C-alpha cells in the first residue's frame, strides 16, 4: 500500500460515510428545508471527499486534476441548486417546520413573500 492509497482510502471512507448520512438525512428530516440542509452539506462534502480520495488513490496527476475539476464543480453547483430549491419551495407556499412557539418571529422571510402580490398565483 502506498501513501496515496492510504490517504485515498481514508478520504473515500469519510466520503462514503457522508454520502450515506446525506441519504439518511434526506430520509429523516421533518421538512424539505431541513432535508436540504442535510442533503446539501453531507453529500457535498461526501462527494468531494470521495472523489478527492479516488484521485489521490490513483495518484496520477491526470486523476487528480480531473477529480479537482469535479470537486470544484460540486462545491459550486450543489449549494446553488439547494438554494434554488429552497426558495422555490418557499415561494410555492410551503413554510418551514418550526419547533418554537413564536412562528412569526422564527420566520423572517415570510413578510417578504407575503407582501408580494404575485405570490397568490403560485401557491399550491
Amino acid at each position: 500500500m502506498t501513501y496515496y492509497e492510504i490517504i485515498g482510502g481514508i478520504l473515500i471512507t469519510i466520503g462514503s460515510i457522508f454520502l450515506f448520512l446525506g441519504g439518511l438525512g434526506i430520509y429523516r428530516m421533518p421538512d424539505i428545508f431541513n432535508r436540504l440542509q442535510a442533503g446539501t452539506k453531507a453529500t457535498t462534502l461526501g462527494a468531494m471527499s470521495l472523489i478527492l480520495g479516488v484521485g489521490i488513490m490513483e495518484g496520477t496527476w491526470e486523476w487528480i486534476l480531473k477529480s479537482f475539476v469535479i470537486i470544484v464543480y460540486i462545491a459550486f453547483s450543489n449549494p446553488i441548486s439547494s438554494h434554488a430549491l429552497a426558495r422555490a419551495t418557499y415561494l410555492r407556499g410551503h413554510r418551514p417546520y418550526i419547533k418554537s412557539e413564536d412562528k412569526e418571529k422564527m420566520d423572517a422571510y415570510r413578510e417578504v413573500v407575503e407582501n408580494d402580490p404575485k405570490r397568490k398565483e403560485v401557491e399550491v
Partner: protein
Amino acid sequence: MKKVLVILLLAVVGFYLADVFIGIGFGNDHFVKSDEIKPVKDIYLQQTVENLKVSNAVTSIVVNFRGFDTLGEVTVLFLSVTALGSILYRKRHHAGDRSVLFSASSIVTAGSKLLFPPILLLGAYVFIHGHLSPGGGFQGGVIIATGFLLMLLAYENYTVSHNALSIVESFAGITFAVIGLMGFMNGGTFLQNFLPVGTLNDLFSGGIIPIIYIAVGFKVAAELTGVIYTVLNEKGDQKNG
C-alpha cells in the same frame, strides 16, 4: 374496468416480451451459435482500431460505419425543430418576452453566468473528443444546449437569435453533407474517409470522424437550443395572447 383490462393486456404483452428477452439472457454472447454468424460488432471493434484509428468504437460506428444513420438522425432533429416551429407558429409572435412570476434569485443568476462559459467548454470538449472518450456530437450538443437552458431560466429576458441558431445549424448540416459527398473523390463512396487517420488516441485521428462529430455537436446544440427557446417563448405567448 378499463384499467383492469389494460393491465391484463399489458401483462400478456409483457409476458411475451419478458419471455423472449429472458430467454436471450443478460450478459451473454447471445448470437445464434453457428459458423454462418459473424456479428458485425466484432468487425467494428477490430476495424475501429486498425483502420480508423478511432478509440471510441461507438463513435466510429455512429460517424463512419453507420454514419448514414447519423445523417438521418441529424435530419430528424432538424425536422423536429422545423416541426416545432411550424406547429407552434402564430402570426403574432412575442419573441423573448417571457414574463415570469418571480425572477430567479441573484444567487442563481450570478451562478449561471459564471457556469455558462465552462458548460459551453465542457460541451465543446465532449464533442471535440468524441472519438477519444465516451462523448460525441450529440452529448456535447446537449450539454451546450443545457447551458443555454440555464441562462434562459436564470434570465427571463435572455434572448437567443433565431437567425444565428439557424445559420449555425445550417452550416453544420451542410458540413456533414458536403463531407459526405466529398467521399466520392477518388472513386470513393458517400461518407468515405478521405483524410489521413493519424494514430490511435491522438486528438488528430480518425480522419473525417471528428470533423463530422464537431459539426454534429454544433448542429445538435443549435437545434436543442432552438427547441428550448421556442417552447419557453410559448409560455410568453400564453400570457400575452
